[in-house]
């Protein structure tokens, strides 16, 4: 089985991730997921590709810590986080987060919390490649 937390160039399968999460416990009554994908339009400009850079070792350890924190904070049974790096095109998958809990509220709240925290804590940077030129993305609140 693949690691629960990964940073990888290749695409991921949401079905595989959810199956792996479900396999971790039969007490799981609710699974919430977040899929972040690449937009082909941003700030009024067409975006042809998005390129990611990361402080790989730190990003992976921060994602591991984020998963552990979420499991403890929300009493999850399990959680998984996969983030892509390299270059993606409009419509491609970027990040997948899944939270599994006995009940839906914890799963939903944990999923929202993890993507918000990821944006604050994990050293990954996004560059939009447009016909007018490239620009590093300024984070949104």
């Amino acid at each position, binding site marked *: 089985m693949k690691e629960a937390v990964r940073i990888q160039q290749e695409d991921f399968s949401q079905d595989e991730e959810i199956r792996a999460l479900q396999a971790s416990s039969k007490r799981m009554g609710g699974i919430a997921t977040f899929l*972040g994908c690449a937009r082909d339009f941003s700030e009024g400009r067409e975006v042809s590709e998005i390129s*990611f*850079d*990361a*402080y790989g*070792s*730190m*990003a992976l*350890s921060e994602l591991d810590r984020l998963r552990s924190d979420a499991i403890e904070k929300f009493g999850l049974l399990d959680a998984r986080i996969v*983030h892509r790096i390299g270059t993606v095109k409009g419509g491609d998958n*970027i*990040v997948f987060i899944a939270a599994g809990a006995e009940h839906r509220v914890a799963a939903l709240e944990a999923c929202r919390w993890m*993507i918000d925290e*990821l*944006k*604050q*804590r*994990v*050293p*990954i*940077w*996004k*560059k939009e490649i447009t016909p007018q030129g490239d620009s*590093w*993305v*300024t*984070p949104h609140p």
Partner: protein
Amino acid sequence: MIKVLFFGPIAAATGVRDVSVMHVPGVTLGGLKEMLAAQYPEAMHLATMMAVNGEHVRDLSLPLADNSEVAFMAKFSGG
């Protein structure tokens, strides 16, 4: 030596992904940042986050040990 890492917009501004800086006893994170700012003013202006040996650090008075790995980082934009 102290290994300094640059990523994303900061690497683009410096034109390099890492530099090695001679370790001087007593040097702090803030001291290193000031020294780099003289060489890479535009890049270091973007450096709002810092990490030492892979851990987030906010305290500029932190003394740096020899062989530390220091990253000066722009605000993250993953996800």
